[in-house]
């Protein structure tokens, strides 16, 4: 079985580890310009950027001879839950032969079991490799969070350490290896700086659609762009945190209640996708004293448009700069950088003003 799955940030590393340990051949071409070209050629014009990337990635994999496509389902009302079905009919129409496995909540386990059976793996093997994949994903996300926060003061050294960590994970065969690697890399990153400098860095939070947040190719590596300009970057969602909040019903309920409480009175209902999360987390970051928030969304994303139209009011009421970045296949990096720099200038100016009141000196710019 030659298997493929759409790229989505660190998830690809975990899935590749899971399927290859089960004995499947993994075909996972990386996202590049060709993905965008293929995706926007065959996807409906008005579909969102993530769908175009998913479709383009499938087309690349099919060209490389894959026969099984894996996709997650869902219950909307975000379009994500229909990605698999629509990609399936489009690819069929193009004349490809393949099998589409859409993992839906109600028959998730049976689908996994039948996939395992085909690969000759029992439940014990599946549990073992899924656990290993999960630890890898969690480790990567922890590093990424750390790197995003410290890049501003430690410079590109942390990126090199992160890449070193990815290589370590590739060699890890059991959970002990992962934990050792985790401790090692975390210590190294922390050694790059002394903690006193971190306190003086202005903090920017990224909120918005999950795919645009976790896939650096889709967001032009926004976290790095901000880090290079001297900001500690925090992200509202990582794939592992999403899994933690969604696969265990009581946790899911708790998280939903927290979001509804935080988003009040701006948004009083779930709107699908991460629309409610965006509003709630923005309010939350303001309470934690963040200096700016960037919302990132693909063009025509329905839940995020609801959030986008509420954020100006949040910004006015709570006095926090917010930038909404709408990206799609046509976004050029230079234009994006100009907008980010205009925003970060505002954030830095406000940050310096607030500090000048405390320390008595005021330095304009950096």
């Amino acid at each position, binding site marked *: 079985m030659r298997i493929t799955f759409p790229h989505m940030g660190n998830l690809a590393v975990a899935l590749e580890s899971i399927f290859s340990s089960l004995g499947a051949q993994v075909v996972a071409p990386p996202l590049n310009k060709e993905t965008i070209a293929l995706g926007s050629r065959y*996807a*409906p*014009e*008005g*579909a*969102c950027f993530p769908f175009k990337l998913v479709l383009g990635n499938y087309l690349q994999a099919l060209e490389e001879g894959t026969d099984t496509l894996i996709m997650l*389902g869902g*219950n*909307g*009302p*975000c*379009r994500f*839950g*229909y990605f698999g*079905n*629509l990609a399936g*009919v*489009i690819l069929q*129409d193009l004349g490809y032969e393949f099998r589409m496995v859409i993992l839906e909540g109600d028959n998730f386990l049976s689908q996994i079991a039948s996939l395992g059976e085909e690969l000759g793996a029992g439940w014990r093997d599946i549990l073992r490799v899924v656990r290993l994949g999960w630890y890898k994903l969690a480790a990567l996300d922890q590093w990424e969070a750390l790197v995003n926060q410290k890049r501003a003061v430690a410079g590109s050294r942390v990126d090199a350490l992160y890449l070193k960590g990815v290589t370590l994970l590739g060699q890890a065969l059991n959970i002990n290896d992962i934990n050792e690697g985790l401790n090692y890399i975390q210590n190294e990153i922390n050694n790059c700086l002394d903690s006193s400098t971190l306190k003086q860095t202005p903090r920017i939070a990224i909120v918005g659609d999950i795919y645009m947040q976790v896939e650096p190719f889709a967001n032009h590596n926004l976290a790095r762009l901000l880090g290079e300009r001297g900001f500690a970057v925090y992200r509202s969602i990582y794939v592992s945190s999403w899994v933690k909040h969604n696969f265990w019903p009581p946790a899911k309920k708790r998280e939903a209640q927290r979001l509804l409480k935080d988003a009040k009175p*701006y*948004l*009083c*209902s*779930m*709107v*699908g*996708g991460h*629309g409610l999360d965006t509003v709630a987390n923005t309010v939350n970051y303001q309470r934690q004293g963040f200096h700016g928030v960037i919302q990132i969304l693909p*063009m*025509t*994303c*329905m*839940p995020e*448009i*609801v959030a*986008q*139209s*509420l954020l*100006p*009011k949040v910004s006015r009421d709570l006095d926090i700069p917010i930038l909404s970045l*709408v990206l799609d296949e046509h976004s050029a990096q230079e234009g994006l950088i100009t907008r980010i720099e205009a925003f970060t200038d505002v954030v830095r100016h406000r940050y310096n003003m607030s500090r000048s009141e405390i320390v008595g000196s005021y330095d304009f710019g950096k």
Partner: protein
Amino acid sequence: MKLRIGIPRSLAYFVFFPFWKTFFRSLDMEVVISPATSKGVLDSGVKEAVADACVPIKLFHGHVLELKEQVDYIFLPRLVSINKEDTVTFCPKFLGLPDLIRATLPNLPPLIDEKVDLQKGPWEIYRLCVRIGRVLGKSPWASLLACRKGRAAQQQYEKIIWQLKVTPAEALQMVEKYQVLPPAAEEEYQLSFAVLGFPYTINDRFISVDMVKKLRQLGVRVLTAEMVPRQNLLAQARKLPKNLFWHFSNQVMRAAMYFMDEKVDGIIHVTAFGCGPDAMVNKMIELEAKARGKIPFMNITIDEHTGEAGVLTRLEAFVDMLKLRRGMI
């Protein structure tokens, strides 16, 4: 003096207006509808709404602004579900509509934004009416009676659409004026088209550039999703691998499959620019029509800049092509 309840003439208006009009009138309220869409209404909406929203949502902002000065309450329920099908809800913009309007348009009269979630069971509609009645200071008993009257009016309205095969806009006109318009002579029509799309785009004569009337003038019988009896649509639903999550898109998709079975001459899908569900549904109808072979299909996307002449040219070209194929010219 009677309390004035404002209902924007947009979005769900075309689906449920008879129910709510009868309900509020039975509760001794005055119902004020915003004027029919015009350039001014659209422009004021476009100015206020977030740039990335679809044109129906922008238009809705305009309709709410029209009502702002005239009414004591604006009726703007949060639509979550209106039937028993699970996993079917509305587009996120509908779910967040009251919050969206409140954040964008300041100084509005109070909104009646009760949640309409009929999936909860057959009694939910009565509970909803009692909640709304309470907001307006009416007794539960009065609200229940008003609800019953509203349901009767709604049934009558839907029956008019099915039996006379008129569009919801025309049916609303009949209900308003208490008169039945004479049906057009059948022999005038040489072709029949399914014109599919959201009720709030097709029935809004301004935003759809009066497409229905233009098609009829070209000798085309216009069929819409509302003219298909509900059980026939549900029968089509079983042929789809997975329900769509959006009520109106489900209606469009199922009606498209129904009309393909009925062998209509052509299908026109009217989509709104920037509409999320439409992007998916349009492709699915296109591929379905292609797979069945020789079902002419056209997509017309409308937005706030849609020009009348451009749409007319496309409609004429589509009709001419079909007449040529059928040997009518």
